[in-house]
Each structure stands twice: as C-alpha cells, then as structure tokens.
C-alpha cells in the first residue's frame, strides 16, 4: 500500500529518473555491443572450462537498452503456463513481454529459479525477472552471476541491473571480481544502474584494473567529490568512456553541481576537440538542466575549430565568465546545488 502511494505521488520524479535511466541504459547497451568485447581482451579475462559458447542461448530482451512497451497480459493465463513444464517457456516469454505489469508473477518465477531449471529456461526466467524489475527478485537472481555458463552469468547481471536493490548491488560487486571479462563489464554498468553509492570505491578500483565501464557508473552514482576525483583521471580513459561519463553526470537527478558539470564538459571537449561538435550539439538538445550547463554545451557545439582546447580542463570561455563557487562540502552521494 505504501509502495503504491509512493509510486503515484512521485510520478513526476519517477519519470525523470526513468528518462535518465533510459539514456544511461542506452549507453550501456551501446557499450556492451560495441566495446565490451574489445575491453575484455585487456581485462585479464580467463576462459573457463565447461562454459557454454557465448553465442549459445544468448539472453534476449534483457540485453536491450530500452524496455519494449509492455503488452496486455492475462496474468491468470500466464500463471497457469508457469505451472506446467510444457508451457513454462511460453509463460516466461509472456511475463517478460509484460514487464513490470507481471509483477505478481515474480514470486512464482523466483520459486522456479530457486529450484533450478534447464539452461534455456534459466535464461528465460532471468530475462523475465529482469523485465519485471522487482527488487525482491534480486536475491534469487544473484547466485546465477556465479554460474559456470557464461550466458547465464550475463543474463543474471543484466537482470540484476534491472531489479536493483542491495542484493543486486552485492552480486554485481562480486561480478567485478570475476574472471569473466564480460561479466565484469556488465557488473560495472549494472552497478551504475542499481544506484548503490557503496559500490563507488569498487568501481573506482575497477577503473584501475581496466574495467572502464565503471567510469560512467561512477558518473551516474558517485558523490560530487567522487565525480571530481573521476574527472581528474578522465583524460586517461578512451574518448567514448569520457563521453559516456559526461552524459551520465549530465543526466543525474538530482543534478550534480553546475561547476562540476562545466568542468566535465570542458574536460571532454578538451579531449575530443573540434571533431565532436555534433556530439555536444546532441547533448545540448537533450539536456534539460541548468541554463549555464546548457549554454556550455551549446558553446562546445559551436566552438570555432581553432578554439577547441586540447589539453585543458578549464571550462569553455563563455561558460566561465562568472564561474559559480564550487560546493564546499557537497552532500555525500548528492550533487551540489544547481
């Protein structure tokens, strides 16, 4: 009852948060598709005996960066499907399609997963629970992050990123320590999504160990101080990770301090130079935060070719005419005052 009330009264905030999350997930999806495989090569991955080939029974919708619109669902019918082995796969697929609307079915799927299923059904159950997104599912999903089958591990990490909660964060933190490079990357991304600030020290260590997906996650959940520390070593990251980190910082709610964001923009602009004016233009169009930040993004998007600094962390000139004072002691886990 209390939960329902919060969902209703906080509708606007949830919308904001979801919008930010959708963008973050989109980036995460892009990362996982485009760069995880490359990253993992340098992450000390060790192949495991007995693990299924990565192509086999790959999880489906959980890998998608955005959730498909939930279709209408007959919960009674799906519940019946989940009760019979012959129709279980169908029921899981329907539950996944229904997304959060199938929340009442989560306990039944959790029960099945806890007792154990075949690999295909395990993957389907993980995807369904991820799509439903109930934090209560995380405890059942968590052990599967340690499964010997790489596809199962991957599906579990993706599901945990969607279900969230302390159990998810704990499991994903374990994932950072795994020998599976893909799992490490997904765990880093998932921790950003799960929003557990306690994970930031591990994420910071992960960057040191070459798990660069941890940088945007720190940008998404780190305190202003932690984000500031991240900025100090942002130029050591590849451009795409710098951009992803900037975007994660820009779209946080509540927003990080303007001064911090301006420094982040300047840092990324310095690294990317004139070649990415279109990129900043896109950021500016999709940014709904403070006017000064929007202006800085606009300035970066329209910076003259020769004006683009290469190695300075200083904010763009037009954005620093009246620099706001940096927050003296930002609240832990929160941004400064916009």
């Amino acid at each position, binding site marked *: 009852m209390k939960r329902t009330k919060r969902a209703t009264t906080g509708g606007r905030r949830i919308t904001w948060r979801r919008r930010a999350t959708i963008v973050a997930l989109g980036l995460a999806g892009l990362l996982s598709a485009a760069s995880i495989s490359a990253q993992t090569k340098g992450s000390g991955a060790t192949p495991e005996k007995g693990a299924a080939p990565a192509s086999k029974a790959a999880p489906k919708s959980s890998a998608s960066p955005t959730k498909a619109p939930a279709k209408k669902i007959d919960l009674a019918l799906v519940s019946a499907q989940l009760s019979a082995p012959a129709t279980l796969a169908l029921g899981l697929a329907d539950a996944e399609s229904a997304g959060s609307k199938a929340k009442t079915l989560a306990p039944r799927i959790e029960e099945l997963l806890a007792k154990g299923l075949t690999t295909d059904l395990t993957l389907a159950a993980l995807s369904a629970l991820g799509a439903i997104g109930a934090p209560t599912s995380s405890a059942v999903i968590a052990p599967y992050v340690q499964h010997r089958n790489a596809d199962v591990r991957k599906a579990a990490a993706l599901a945990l990123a969607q279900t969230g909660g302390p159990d998810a964060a704990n499991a994903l933190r374990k994932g950072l*320590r795994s020998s599976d490079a893909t799992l490490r990357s997904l765990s880093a991304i998932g921790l950003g999504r799960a929003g557990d600030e306690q994970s930031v020290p591990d994420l910071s260590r992960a960057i040191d*160990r070459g798990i660069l997906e941890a940088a945007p996650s720190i940008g998404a959940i780190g305190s202003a101080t932690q984000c500031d520390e991240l900025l100090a070593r942002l130029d050591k990251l590849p451009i795409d990770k710098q951009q992803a980190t900037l975007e994660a910082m820009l779209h946080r709610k509540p927003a990080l301090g303007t001064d911090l964001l301006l420094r982040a923009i300047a840092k990324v602009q310095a690294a990317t130079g004139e070649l990415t004016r279109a990129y900043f233009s896109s950021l500016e169009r999709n940014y709904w935060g403070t006017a000064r930040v929007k202006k800085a993004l606009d300035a970066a998007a329209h910076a003259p070719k020769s004006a683009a600094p290469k190695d300075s962390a200083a904010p763009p000139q037009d954005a620093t005419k009246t620099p706001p004072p940096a927050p003296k002691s930002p609240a832990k886990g929160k941004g400064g005052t916009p």
Partner: protein
Amino acid sequence: VSAPLRLPGSIAITLVLSALSLFGCGGGQTQGAAFDNTKRDDGTAMTALQKQLASVSIPRAADVAVGVFGERSLVGVPLEGGKPWTFEHPIACRPVVAGGVVVGVGTDEMFGLDARTGKQLWARKAGGCIRGVADDGRVTVVSARPVNGRGGIVIAIDREGQVVRQIEDGSNIGAPGMIDGFVFLPWDGRYVSAYDLAAGDEIARVQLPGATRAFAAGGALFFGERSATRFDEHVAQAGATTVTLPARELPDHPAWMDSGNDALPPGALVSDRSRLYARPLATGAAGIVGDRYAATSGRVAMGFDAKTGVLAWVHTHDASFLGGAAYEGGFALCDAEGRVTYLDAKTGAVAGSAVLGIPIDACVVQADAFTKTAADAPRPLRDAIAGALRLPHPDAEPIQRFLLAELTALPDEAATETLIRLVDESAAPVGLAADVRSALGARRSGASFMLTTLAQRYDYLEGALHVPPVGPLADALAAMGEKRAAPLLAVHLLDPVTPVSDVERAASALEVLAGPAELPALQQFFAAYRETPDLPLAMAVAHVARALERLGSGDLVASAMRDPYTSDLVRSKLGAPAAGTKGPAK
C-alpha cells in the same frame, strides 16, 4: 673364500710374446709357473701376505680432477685449487687416475702424466683401452682391454717408462691395486690374485665373487664393485670386512663402481651422470665414512644414510654431474661445465669448488687425503627437494618423481606447505604437475596450511588471479575429516573459476564434511546444475545431493527427481529413473 688356483696359470711365455708386440720390449716377463691352476689355496697364503703387508702404509693418492674435452685434450686441477693444467694427445678411451698419475691412451700410444701438474712422465706404444691403474709412486700398473676385446693385459711401467712386467691372459683382468710391489688383480669377476711384481709370480689368491676392481682409499686397499671388501686380516675368511650400500630405487639404477672389466669411452655415459659415491672405512668394522653416500642424477646430487638408505639432503646444480669421488667429510663432484663442487657429506651444503676452466665431456675425480666441509646449517630437506622439483629439464623428470615421493613421505607438516607452493606456483615441470597435485592430495598432515590456501580466492579486482589447488586440498582434507574446510570448499564449489574436475572433488569432500551452515550453498549448487549433461559436474551434483540428504534436505532432492529439469545423467548418478519413466527416486 679359498679358491683353486686355476686360470692365470695360462699366462705363459707365448702370451708374453704377443704382449710384447703390443707394448714393445721391456722388463721382466711373467713366469710360467706363477699362476699354476693345479695349486689350491685355502686362504693361508693371502692371510700371510696381508699380515706381511699390514705394516706397509699405502701412500695417499693425488687429489685431482681430470676432464676430457674433445678428442685430444685433457685438463686437470688439484682439488685444493690452483691453476688447471692441460695436455694434448689423442684420447681413445677414458683416462684413469691412480696414485699420482693419470694414464691415457690414444693412437696406439699410452702415456702417463703427473696428476698434479699434467707433466708427461712416460709414453709407450700400446693399443686397447684402459680398465684400471694402480700406482705406488715408483711403478704404474695398467690393466688394459686388448684391441680384440677378449682377455686382459697388464703391464707395469716404471717412472722412466720401462716396462718392468707384463701379463696377457684370456681372462678378464679387472682394475688392479698395489701395495709395496705386490699387485692385486681381480679376474673373471670371481678371484683376486696377489702377484709379486719383482718375482713375476702369483703368490696368493682369494675368491671374491663380484670383485672386478681393486682400489686404495684412506690408506687401505679394497676389492669389489657393488660392494667393497677391505684387504685386512679377514679378507680370506667367510666374515670378510665387506660393505654394501643400502638399495634405493633410483632412476637409471646408479652403481657405486663401474665394472673393472670395462674400459670406458672418452665421453660421459648415462652411468656417469647417475652414480653412487661412497668411501669405505679404512679401519674398524665394515662401513662407510660418515655413514653417508651420495648419488647423482644429472643436475641433482643426493645424500643418503649409508646404513638405512634414508634421504638426508638434496643439492640442485646448474649443470649435469659427470663424475666425482667421496672424501673424508664430503663429496667432490665434477660437472659438465668443468667445475668441481665439494658438498658436505652431512648437510649437502657447498663447501667449496675448483675450476677446470672449460666445459668437458667426461670427468675423473680422485680424492684421498683431501677434506673440505661446510659450516652452513643444513637446508630443510623439503626446501631442497622443492628446488630439485623446479628444474625445468625434461631429463630430470625421473629423479623428480623419486624426490616427489620422498617429499610426500616426509612426516613434517611443513612439507605440505612446500607441496602447496609447488602446485600454486605451477613450479614443477608440466610432465610432473599432475603428480605433484596427487602428492598433495595424498598428504595427511599440514591441515592448517591447507586451510590457509583454501581460503584464497580468485579476485580480479585485487589482482589475485590464481586459483588454489582445490581438488587435491579437498581430497586431503576430506580424508583427514577436517570439518573446518567445509565453508571454504562451499565457496569454491560455487565459484565458476574452480576447474570442473576440482568442483567434483570439492563436492565429494563436502559430502562428508558439510554441516548445516553449508546447506544454502549446497542447495544453490544443486539447483544450478542438476540439469547438467556433463559427467564431472553431474558427479558433483550427485555428491551434493547426498550431502543434502545427509543434512535433512532430502525432500529437495526427491522433488527434483520428480520434475523434468534434472538431467538423466544426474538421475543415473543418484540411482533415480530417467525423466519420463515411473519409479521412485532414491
């Protein structure tokens, strides 16, 4: 031990003539009646001779190492140290060192060198190859294998190079010994005859089965090959002073001494790389000096208790040992790089070295009065063995297996730690790795070391990238009934980085060790893998299922047997019918 006088009676003037053709003219010839095989000897003559010679001191021989390199070069160095000498001459057979001389042969010429300086003493025309040499400082007696390979030739040469006596016979005459003008000639591997060099006559003989060589050590004369019998008042009696080394099953079956009937090629043989070194006691009861003998096997030297055969120390070297000698308090071992290393007999510690200065193909060492010991504390045997087990050379594998068995048998708890380290660091050669893991699994002590190791986990974030040897540790800890291992094993059971073969062994251990605290992990494992079609994992699931049943969660297993999500392989391991068939679950 008395023997009928038989063979050397055939040593006759006719044979002398052919000997002369080999060695050229010179000195006295053997007397036809000297070895009359119609005479019988009850040991009285040999006992009398021993009594006669008892007060004669045998001069100490030169302490020297002589190396052969190439086809025409010898290099020598005194064991006390000093500048190495070299001598150029074609080398057809392995040179022999005795007393103060080195005797070599090549291109039909035999030569004698001062062992300490390498200075040539004499040279004679001669063929064949040298079986053995005796030298008393005035005369050198050489036993040689004739060119045709049959029988034996013995010549006695004085320092001027004159042949003072020569014998040729159809019997195999082994390596000679010498005291005060009397030459002791083992022959046919059964007898030792005492021969009066001046008179040219055999004056006594004793039957010593297996004796093919005579040699002096520590001022006493010995006969033997696999054992050593001292020439003392008991030599002609049933209770002769004979010492034998305790048998150990060493690779390549190293021998204490080569057969005195063999003449060796210039280059080292397998038997030179694997050899036993011991020095029989010169006085008192039969025994080995310091109760220690050494064995070499390639780059490894080992010290053993001479009474029990128990391994005492191991020395790992950076080059293969080719030859050596035992001295009072140690062993002088010569390696292929041309170094002579002195190892303390008690501890195996390096006591010093001498340098020949050039890599060599074979080495002969004589140590008589020499002594050198080390004051260093002995290295723990387990560490010394581990050092040998780390040798990366494939030819070391046989001796490494021997040493691994020794390490495994050590009661010392710390030996477990050594084994763990060897497995953890993958320090042993690939061919030996499985044996080292098995050895660890067979340990029944050192649980605290095992638990400490088992507590380690793969952690990418912390840079801990190695996986402990879960399988062997699980085997050992289960056999020891060490229940403290259960929570650690449960962690590794669930960790995908644990090799599947180790998972099976961890599960097997948990079947007996797991307690209620491990139930969640066991349930989790059972749920995750009960569908597996892979045999090792199915075996692990079966072990876990039995643990669950033992811990009161049998209903979980029974329920799993009723649904279609348990693989037939797992069912079969649990004695349950395949899915789709009716029948009660076990």
